[in-house]
């Protein structure tokens, strides 16, 4: 995996090879590679001269530092009480139907991953999701279906 090695080197140069730059480096890997593989962790440990166990420990602590491949578009549905009261379950049901996957899964074409997440801080505009980094609020089943279909169109896939 020369790519990952190269990427880790670049990031360590950009942020500096100190332990306190571990989080930005790991975030950088997720941004370009989609997830942090074991090779990547070992590589980061080597670059920063810290133990691989330390890198592993930190990586697995944070919910945004994925250790497994995920879809190009990650949909995180807020499951906290305010969004629940505004019907987040209907949003999830609709998403499971359109994407034909269950919560936690990734579509076969690798386009979408469906997850739940804790409070997104959009409680006054629930139900809310984060689509990669961007929040979408005041959702309805119709709106969420359109969001998915628009992405599919953009990515040129048929339903």
């Amino acid at each position, binding site marked *: 995996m020369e790519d990952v090695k190269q990427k880790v080197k670049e990031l360590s140069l950009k942020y500096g090879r100190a332990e306190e730059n571990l989080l930005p480096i790991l975030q950088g890997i997720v941004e370009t590679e989609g997830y942090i593989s074991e090779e990547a962790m070992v590589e980061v440990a080597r670059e920063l001269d810290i133990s691989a166990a330390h890198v592993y420990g930190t990586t697995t602590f944070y919910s945004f530092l994925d250790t497994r491949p995920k879809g190009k578009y990650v949909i995180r549905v807020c499951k906290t009480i305010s969004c*629940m009261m505004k019907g987040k379950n209907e949003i999830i049901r609709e998403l499971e139907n359109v994407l034909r996957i269950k919560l936690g899964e990734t579509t076969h074409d690798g386009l979408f991953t469906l997850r739940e997440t804790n*409070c997104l801080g959009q409680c006054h505009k629930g139900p809310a999701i984060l689509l990669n980094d961007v929040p979408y609020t005041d959702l309805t089943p119709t709106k969420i279906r359109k969001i998915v279909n628009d992405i599919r169109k953009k990515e040129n896939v048929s339903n």
Partner: protein
Amino acid sequence: MQQKKLKRLDLIFKDENDVADILQKTYSRPIEKVINDLIASGLTGRGGAGFPTGLKWKLTAEAESDEKFVICNADEGEPGTFKDREILTRVPYKVLTGMAVCGKFIGAKQGFIYLRGEYKFLIPQLTVEIEKFHKILDEMGCSFRVEIFKGSGAYICGEESALFESMEGKRGEPRNKPPFPTTYGYKGKPTVINNVETLAHTYSIFKYGPDKFRDLGVQNSPGSKVFSVSGDTPIPGIYELEFGMSLHKFVDDFGDGDSKAVQVGGAAGFCVPRKKFDKITIGYKGKLSGNSLPTGGSMMIFNSSRSMYNVLHNYLDFFVEESCGQCTPCRVGTQQLLLGIEAVKKGEKPSSYLDKLLKLAETMRLTAKCGLGQSVANSFESIVENFREEMIY
């Protein structure tokens, strides 16, 4: 039309960008005077704990060290809270000014905004604001710098010592206290860490003086507070109100006419049932047994169609996921509370089992290492005690 009884304030969000003037004014006065103003204003931390802000700055200024830091806590993860994002979006320069004045006073050259990963979309705009701010500082010959540090999705990192650990590249596990951040913070250096809203308030205090701030609110809790209102309300959103308001009035203003309970302070806060609305005011000092409740700003309203079992279940589920797992009372306790209420609901355990769970929650309050584990008992006790029959049937 809704009859508006509580006074809406417009202090925090008032767009009055005179950063250069404020900085000039504070920097040209003896900085001790500026801090005395802050102390006299009675401003307390808006992140939930309510520590006096002026004192925090003073203690950090007095700590001896070659390096110090100012950190703005923008990890805003408490369920039902969304005010800090709004402040950072609409009046970021107030927060930055607060940080720079603090830096000057305590002797810090570097400030950080710890921004939760869920707010990554704010970064482009915030970066522009920071650059503009740096230019103003440059013109004044001030070398203070602010950087954004991005979180990665962990509620516990809002706890100050977990936040430092996270910034140091570690798991976000809270430290033992003392030592406190004023002497041992980020990288073991004296650090002022303040909530976004706290810093924004300092701007108004520097601009208008402490008396104007003291005119608002009540004795123990001066000033205004930004509230995040959600749940069963026709008007969800962000409101700046005076401290010391009665919950009864609040519900009159914001409820849908059928309010059965209000959760004050998020999942870590207290649930107040309708029959106690007129006995509770919002502000620091005192517990539910007294008559005043603190809040970081989260106000969730539930109407009579809501099951309080579902509400508690949702909170416990949140705590189980967000517990850092470092100490046993919290790691095991949160799980057992969740399994426990499920078992009672299903009839697998008798209703008296709830009393055992209440004891467990109380033990967590006493033995958990940090505020997360300690505060689970707040919502657990106040929901189970006030809505016991809903837990059983």
